[in-house]
């Protein structure tokens, strides 16, 4: 049920109907409130809907702390090499350097690892999300809490746990050793990086999928079964299309975050793979070449931004949040 579209609102065609006495009211009958609240009440009463007022603190934070820094990065990518000032003569030299060197390798690694992680997570999380949304009740709460809790543990502690578990003489190696079995540590290779990415980003796929699958009405599935559809056909023609917003948003989220990941390849993968985020960090820190780092960041922002823009244009995340209530 959508509680937003009140009949009184749609009837007048205006967002909030204002009582004509409203503007005067805070000054007349509100003696108990302080000066600030009276001012605020007056401002709120004057504006047609408090929406923009209420949104403005967050808009301000995001403009100053998110949009402006990104513009700063893009602008910096046109500055001459190794400068720390934003007022140099604009140049394309960072981009010619990026495309002339082997940075494309890191970019392909990141995109490939991101795609592989997303694919694996879809296969693991769909049945899990289905079980949590449709099959279990109490047990589902338990599993959901268990997975949410892990989000609060620093990513690097969890990845370090994998190192301790998988290293030679670690938990698994030691267990196998006491049984007299040989053990070759999978650490510092591509496989274990994928494991780390799948592990860290699982909640970001799982939760949108659960919300998506909750949107599939049980009656529709039952009707299809009653009409003789096979399990596979119900999955393909009912479950997947109706839970598509969850699938798309979960996939986009995991892909975008995995493409920008760095810690997994660093902690678990040794020096085997250098991701694009690691290249960016190196350019900023060790190389002290901010314009180059900005150029690489701009490239990554461009890729991520395009994907997010295209997805959000087709799929409204509000359908996932709003339909829950």
């Amino acid at each position, binding site marked *: 049920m959508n509680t937003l579209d009140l009949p009184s609102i749609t009837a007048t065609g205006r967002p909030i109907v204002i009582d004509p006495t409203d503007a005067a009211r805070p000054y007349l009958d509100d003696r108990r409130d302080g000066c600030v609240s009276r001012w605020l009440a007056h401002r709120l009463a004057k504006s047609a809907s408090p929406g923009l007022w209420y949104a403005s603190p967050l808009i301000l934070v995001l403009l100053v702390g998110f949009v402006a820094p990104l513009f700063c990065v893009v602008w910096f990518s046109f500055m001459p090499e190794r400068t720390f000032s934003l007022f140099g003569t604009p140049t394309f030299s960072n981009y010619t350097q990026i495309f002339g060197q082997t940075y494309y390798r890191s970019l392909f690694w990141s995109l490939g690892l991101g795609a592989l992680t997303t694919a694996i997570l879809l296969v693991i999380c769909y049945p899990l999300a289905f079980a949590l949304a449709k099959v279990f009740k109490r047990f589902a709460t338990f599993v959901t809490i268990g997975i949410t809790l892990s989000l*609060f543990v620093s990513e*690097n502690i969890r990845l370090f746990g994998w190192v301790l578990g998988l290293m030679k003489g670690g938990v698994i190696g030691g267990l196998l050793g006491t049984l007299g079995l040989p053990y070759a540590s999978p650490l510092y290779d591509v496989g274990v990086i994928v494991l780390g990415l799948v592990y860290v980003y699982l909640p970001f796929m799982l939760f949108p999928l659960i919300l998506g699958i909750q949107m599939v009405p049980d009656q529709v599935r039952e009707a299809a079964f009653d009409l003789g559809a096979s399990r596979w056909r119900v999955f393909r023609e009912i479950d997947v299309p109706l839970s598509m917003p969850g699938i798309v948003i979960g996939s986009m989220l995991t892909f975008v975050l995995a493409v*920008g990941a760095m810690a997994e390849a660093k902690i678990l993968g040794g020096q085997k793979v250098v991701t694009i985020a690691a290249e960016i960090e190196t350019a900023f820190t060790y190389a002290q070449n901010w314009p180059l780092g900005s150029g690489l960041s701009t490239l990554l922002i461009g890729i991520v931004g395009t994907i997010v823009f295209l997805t959000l244009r087709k799929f409204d995340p509000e359908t996932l949040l709003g339909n829950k209530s």
Partner: protein
Amino acid sequence: MTSRTQKIGFGAFAGVVLLVFYFPLLSVALASLSKKRYFSFPIENYTLKWYSDAIHSAAISEYVTISLKIAALTTIFSLVIGFFAALAYARYPWRGRKSFQRLVLLPLFFPQTVLGLALLMWFSFLGVTTSWMTAVVAHTVWIAPIATLIIAIQAYSLDPSLEEASRDLGATRWQTLRMVTLPLLGQSLFSAGCFSFLLSWGNFALSLFTTGADSALPEWLYSRMVVGYQPLIPAVGTLSVLGAVAVALVLLLFLQWRSRRHKTTAPAA
């Protein structure tokens, strides 16, 4: 609809996923109990020495203090900003609402490393020296939208007639907000507060670039994982996890208590 065997299959699968999920944390906890400087399994001599070292170390308590300060301020800012933003997001229709809803999501769909570096450059451009206070700004940019979404979920199901009744009875918008809307959203505010605190407490990628000369706990842990490992590191890691679990448990108990009270007082709802 689902048969018994299916149920067992799904249950086993979920169980395996949870086990794998907690395997690394178990490894960390085991490593912290080993007497030997270098971890090897099975552990020969168990000790709690590293925990007492961790608790008595002045350096570690300083990192903890910094992390706590960042998390506390981030939580306060995120809650205040998120409360109003959630009402704008879910409750009131207004002209720029659709664009606002997209804008709120952007920081979440963004690699944190790049956001951290972008903020580092931005602060340097503005001439602000980075310290734990700039980290609060960085954390708030990422966490305030999350708090907004958590509160928005409850704000969607807010009954508008309650606010209207309050207005009709002569309350100002500000009084209605304080005495009707705020208490009605209490549960999600509490959840959002806990989430904000915990996400800030565990955050590494943003802190790494924005704390300057200060160091938050996850940063220090990371630097010692790379060079200079000793069982003190997993011991501190385990303590930080246990602290987070304690906060999460308080949240869970609160939600349970709320839902039980809700059931007894308003069975019709």
